[in-house]
Each structure stands twice: as structure tokens, then as C-alpha cells.
């Protein structure tokens, strides 16, 4: 058990997610007498039982958080047996397939069950997922996972080839999802499974050629499909960092020069103010200066102790292991003689720039007219 959100305390046989950092999570099934080694030391299962989900928990060399699994956490921690779908694609698929409690969905192939978990969550407790996988080992492992996660009521897995043997239901599905190498060959099977009164279909393909063949079939007159749409999603995750950029010396050593440049008539009169003996940029961003008005008492921003080390730890989203000086909360950009310091978002060097093309269409054979004079 594990995905049942109505319980708030850990019990034996629960799946829990041990959180050590946002890129370091571990799915653990809580068993009597067992011990799991984490990077913070041993975690005794017996001690977890009864604790509230979301609790901090001491291991021998540090602490971890014990989280209740969600399909999204599962996706980031599950054992990969195949390529899997990730959160942004999964979100778009469930949305565009119009899944909701009660929906009947057909999927092939099951693969590692990443998408399946999200589908089951959304269609439960009254809907059902029929998922088809032709690889014996993946079929068995996914079946065991569904069982262990307490999802059996809302999912059935079938060991068969969807292209040859089709889906197990006919005229019954609200939505069909395909993630197989030749989706076009499974389209007739998908159409058969979908309700003739209407439904949605989606195919995920990493390659454009497959997508092209699939779209051509969808668009064929009399196919019963319409509103064909292909999209691609890329998610950019940002790190929030404090950055310090140096302020260059433009030769303001001479007080007279400085005064001239920084005076109200000089070029730097708008952004910075000089105090009696402050270097340029030391403090003070003029906040509410109105044009033409003398900016007498300038608003001063406290000089903050700039520490460029601070940034990396908070960027990970994992605060507990932070070693550097504690960040005392949010501060506005500030300028000091050491530089100009501000918070910004920095994208990681590399991201998943391409996962696959998602093709969606509506199935409505009874009312679908061939209005597209294109083909």
C-alpha cells in the first residue's frame, strides 16, 4: 500500500519515499525488522511505523524526510526497466486525454509504469486502466508493483501484443494512450477500444517519422479522428542563486571627478547615491526618486554581507545539508564596493531538450466529417 492519501501515518508494507535531497530520493517498502542503508546511515523500518508522513527522521549520520508517495514522486524514484515518461509530458497527457475520476483508459505499453501510476490516480476510484505490455518480465514486474501499491482495483495489466491482439475492451474506452515504436500499426486497435460516442487518443513518439505516419493515418478520410495536434514540451527547471558581479573602477579616485560624475547633472545620477565617503555604488538604490525633484534623504539599503558561496546549497532545494552561512531571508538587490549582488534564476547547463512528440486527436466516428479538404 502507499498511494492511499487518506492515511497520514506510516504502517507496515507501506511504500514510502525517503527524501535526502531533491535528486536523492529512495522508494522503500516498510517491512518488519528490516533496515535500509541511506547515505545518512541506517534507517530502521520498525522506527518509521506510526510516524506521520512528512516527518523528519534521524538516521545514524543525519536526517531524512519520510514522504507519502505520489505518482509524481514515484516517477522520479521508480526502477527503470524502459525509457519512461516524466512529469511535464504526463501532465499534458492526462490533461489532453481529459482524464478524470471514472474514465476508462487503455494504454500500451506499460513499460516501467511511470505514466500508469498517474493515470490510475486520476481515474480512481471509479475508473479503470487497461494496460497492455508484451514483454513478459516487464508485464510481471509492473503487475507486482500495482498490487503492492494497492492499485489493483483500478488497473488490469495484460500480457499481449497490442498490434496483433488489440486491447481487451471494445467500444469502452474514454481514452487510449500509445507509447510503442509503431503507433500507426496499433491505431485500428485503438479505434476499436474507444467509445464510438467519442474519446481521445494520444501517442508519444521520440521520433518524427513515427509521428508523421501516425498523423497521416489519423487524418485519413473516414478514420473517425479529427482535431489532430502534435506538440512538444520542454521543461526548464531553475536554480535560484545569489550572484555577485563586480563593479568596475571607472576612475573615480579623484574626489572632484567623482563628484562630477555622480552629481545630479552627471551620467550616474539616477541609480546610485554617494554618501560622504562612500565609494561608488556602495549601498543605496534610489527607490522613489521622482524626476526633477531633489532626492534628499536617499533610502539606504543595508550593506549585506555578500557571500557568493551561499547560493549552491539553496539551489538544490535541500536546505538541511546546508553548511554555508544561513541566509536570513530574502534581500533585494544591493550594490556594495565589492560588487552588485542580486538573486537570479539560473538554468542548469543541460536539460532534457527533447523527450518526444505528443500527438493528440479526438475520436468521434459517428459525427466526424471529412472537412479537411487538404488530404
Amino acid at each position, binding site marked *: 500500500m502507499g498511494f492511499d*492519501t487518506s492515511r*497520514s501515518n506510516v504502517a507496515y508494507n507501506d511504500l514510502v519515499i525517503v*527524501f535526502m535531497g*531533491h535528486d536523492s530520493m529512495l522508494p522503500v517498502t516498510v517491512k518488519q525488522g528490516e533496515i535500509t542503508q541511506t547515505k545518512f546511515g541506517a534507517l530502521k523500518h520498525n*522506527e518509521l511505523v506510526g510516524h*506521520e508522513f*512528512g*516527518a*523528519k*527522521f*534521524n538516521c545514524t549520520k543525519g*536526517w531524512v*524526510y*519520510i*514522504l*507519502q508517495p*505520489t*505518482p*509524481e514522486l514515484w516517477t522520479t524514484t521508480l526502477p527503470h526497466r524502459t525509457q519512461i515518461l516524466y*512529469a511535464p509530458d504526463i*501532465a*499534458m497527457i*492526462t*490533461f*489532453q486525454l*481529459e482524464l*478524470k*475520476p471514472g474514465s476508462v483508459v487503455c494504454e500500451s505499453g506499460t513499460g516501467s509504469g511511470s505514466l500508469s501510476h498517474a493515470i490510475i*490516480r486520476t481515474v*480512481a*476510484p471509479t475508473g479503470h486502466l487497461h494496460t497492455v505490455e508484451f514483454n513478459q518480465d516487464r508485464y510481471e514486474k509492473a503487475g507486482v508493483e500495482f498490487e503492492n501499491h494497492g492499485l489493483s482495483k483500478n488497473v488490469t495489466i495484460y500480457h499481449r501484443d497490442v498490434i496483433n491482439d488489440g486491447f481487451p475492451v471494445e467500444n469502452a474506452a474514454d481514452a487510449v494512450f500509445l507509447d510503442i515504436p509503431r503507433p500507426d500499426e496499433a491505431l485500428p486497435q485503438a479505434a476499436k477500444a474507444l467509445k464510438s*460516442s*467519442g474519446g481521445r487518443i494520444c501517442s508519444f513518439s521520440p521520433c*518524427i517519422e513515427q*509521428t*508523421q505516419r501516425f*498523423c*497521416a493515418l489519423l487524418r485519413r478520410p473516414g478514420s473517425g479522428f479529427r482535431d*489532430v*495536434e502534435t*506538440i512538444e*514540451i*520542454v*521543461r526548464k*527547471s*531553475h536554480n*535560484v542563486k545569489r550572484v555577485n558581479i563586480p563593479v568596475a573602477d571607472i576612475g573615480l579616485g579623484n574626489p572632484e571627478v567623482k563628484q562630477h560624475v555622480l552629481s545630479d547633472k552627471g551620467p550616474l545620477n539616477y541609480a546610485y547615491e554617494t554618501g560622504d565617503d562612500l565609494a561608488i555604488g556602495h549601498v543605496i538604490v534610489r527607490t522613489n526618486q521622482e524626476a526633477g525633484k531633489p532626492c534628499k534623504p536617499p533610502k539606504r539599503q543595508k550593506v549585506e554581507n555578500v557571500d557568493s558561496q551561499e547560493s549552491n546549497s539553496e539551489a538544490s*532545494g535541500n536546505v538541511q545539508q546546508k553548511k554555508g552561512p544561513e*541566509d536570513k*531571508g*530574502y534581500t533585494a538587490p544591493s550594490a556594495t564596493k565589492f560588487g552588485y549582488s542580486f538573486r*537570479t*534564476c539560473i538554468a542548469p547547463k543541460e536539460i532534457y531538450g527533447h523527450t518526444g*512528440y505528443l500527438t493528440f486527436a479526438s475520436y*468521434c466516428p459517428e*459525427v*466526424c*466529417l471529412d472537412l479537411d*479538404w*487538404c488530404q
Partner: protein
Amino acid sequence: MNDYITLGESVILKKGDVLKAVKLLPKKLIVFERMRFVPDNAEGALFGSTFKIDRGGLVLVNQEEVNQEKNAVTQSGQDNRGIVDTHGDSQTLKRECILQMKEEGQSGEQIIGNLVNNSSTFTGKTKFSQTKYVKKKQKKYSSYIQIHKPTARLICKLYINREPAKILNMNLDSISQIVTATNIRQGSKVVVLETCSGMLLALIMERLGLEGCVVNLHVGETPSNLFALSHLNLSEDKWKLINSFPLSQLGPLIAGHPLPSDPLLNAEVEVKDPEMIYSLTHEQDVVVVEEKANLMSQDGNDEPDKDTTSFVNGKRKRHYLTDSEKLAVKIERRKKRHEQKEFAYNCLQKGQMDAIIMACRFHPTPIFMSLMGSLAPSKPFAIYHEYQEPLMELFVQLSVSNSAINLQLCETFMRNYQVLSERTHPHVMMSTGRGYLLTGTKVNKELPSTNKSD
């Protein structure tokens, strides 16, 4: 809701890429994309059906008819060698003639056929450019529309296409991620603050199915974000899952102040027709009517109009109310609202909510930090904002407070493709997908007492 079009319910009209949500009322004129018609004939047709506008009414269109029109377009050149640049003179049919054809009641397709026949360059064009030409004209003159079942997906698309500013320029990818990142499912108890006309609420309500609980936070006295929801044809039971709570009561709630009582609720009023008062205050349509009124009057005045309108079984009723009846309606509404407030108050106070969703134009930090107490540990939240900087601030506040983990500040990029044989490429126009999403999971920062040793 079934698969057939029913008068009295909301539907989505579609013409080309243009969508519109309307309520189909008998004999009630609908204006859509410069077309005017009454919807009566659509009753009983399957959702997704195509109709032609004919003499102000709807006629179901079948495939044969379409094929005839299509066959009008036959001959085509192989490439562009035969094309002469006629500087816009290639169309010999003059504007006046087109208008005249329209007046004569010719259908959009007939007009297109005429345009094609009168275009000197048409047959010289390749099949592809012919199609393009026809499509361009089709868009302008075609009088085909489709009627679709209202779903959260179509409602979201509609807002994205027509009123992006009203939904904080949110894109499909942000919208879809908000409800998965927060694990919304049947039975979820969710705190929502959205200033997106109810579009997000519509999606949340769809995902909640038959049970669950929404605490709908709003500014002012009454919620003004139920509009998109009204198009989902929600049953009364589903409306009951939404409990509106004014943001201005959040501070007092945290400080432990009880909800202020409403003196009006104890007033005694004589009512002649209690049933009518009930229907006036409990029907979803009234919510909409009421809301429209509220949108117009700044202070959220809940004085019922002189002639309040309600729809019963698709029929419009006008009610002329006496003063005491007006008061009764007002009291009944206030009562309902007060019950909701109390329910929401308890939800927020218990600290056992399953998710927090925010997508508003306000500075998010003070609101979100004040709501954290109502979320149970290990539960997710998602905050959308049009701008990155406020979310950066919230990100830092949350990580410093040690009350949330798994914080992610994301931006998604969605690209549409034209996929056609030999002509596959990304769409030329792409939405810039403004907006950022901060997601995370709440945790309990204290070590449990049984685990303090070490």
C-alpha cells in the same frame, strides 16, 4: 452528463480554431463569429456534431453534403510555374457580389465555390496552394460550426485563445502541471486561490469527481471567479464542494479569532413562496447571474435585481420580488455563504488539507506563508505566477523556513508542430508561455519526540 446536446445546458461552440462557451436556451439568439442563430434544432444531436447555419437556425450536416462541396475543387497544377502575379486582381468576383450572395442566403460553401470558379489563377495553383486558398476563404465564409461537450480542456483552450490576460497568460503546460504536481484526485481537500476567472477551478472540479473539498479563497465579499465553472454544467452536489472564504479573514483565522457573525442572518422575514426563494438561491445559474451582478457593482452588493432571472429546465423565468422577498433572498444567500465560510474556516484551521494551489496576480509570499499551516505534512503545493521574481522570493523564504522540500521553480516551453508528409515543421507562431511554476512538498521541521535520541 450524457453524450447528447440538451437545451438548457452549456456547450462549447467551435468554428475553425475559435471556441466559445454558451448556454443553449430555447429560441434564444446566439451570436458567434458574426453568425446569428437559435440553437433549438441542435437538441438531441450527438456532441461533436457539425451544423450549418441556415436562415437563423441550425441544420445538421452530413458527410455526403460535404463531399459535394469538396468535389467542386478538382483541377490542380503540379507546381507554381503557372502562377501569374495578378496583384490582387485574380479574383474577378467583386465584393458587392459576395455580399449579394450572402443576402440571397447562399451558404458559405456555395460562396467559396463561386470564389474558386471566379479566381483566374486558381486552377494554375498546386493542389497545396489551392487548399490553402480554399481554407483561407473557408475561414471567412464557411458557416459550419461544431457543438462540443464542455470539458475543462476546452474551457482552458478557450481562455488561452480568447482571454489570455484573464488567466494570467497561463499556458496549457502550466495548467496541466498544476493539477498533477498537487496530486489532485477524487476526494482531495484543496485550498485554491486563483484569479483566473475560474478556469483552474473548472479543471480542479473535473479532477475531484464526486467528492472532495475546495476552499476557494477570494478578495472582497463574494467570489468573483466562478464564471468559467458555470460552463461545466455542474450538479448542485458538485457546487457544494466549493467553499468560498474571503482572504481578509485569513489573518484573523491565524490569530485565532472566530468568524464574525452576520447580524442579518437572524432577521425574521415573511415569505410567501419559500420554494421560489430556495430555487433562486440554490441554482447554479443564479450563482452566475449573481456573479455577473457582482462584477458590475464594485462592492459586491448582494441586493437581488428587481426582476431576478432564473432558468428552470432551460426555461427562463422572471421573478418580480416584493421588498421582503428581496430581503429573504438576500438572507438566504448570506446564510449559504456564511455556512461555506464556516466550513472553510474549519478546514483551514485543522491543518489537514491535501494541497494548495495558487495562481493569482497578488504578491504570493504573504498569502502562501499564511496558508502553509493549513496543509498537512508530506502534501504538495503549486504556485503559478506570471513573473519570476516573486516566486524566487517565495522559494528562498520557503527554503529558509525549513517547512518545505523538493522545491522546484520551473518554466515550460511548449511547441506545436505541423505534421504533414514532407511538410513537417514547428508552427511559425508559438506562444511564449509566460509564467512560472513553483512546486514543493510541505514537511514537518521538528523531529518527532520518539526519534530525538541519537
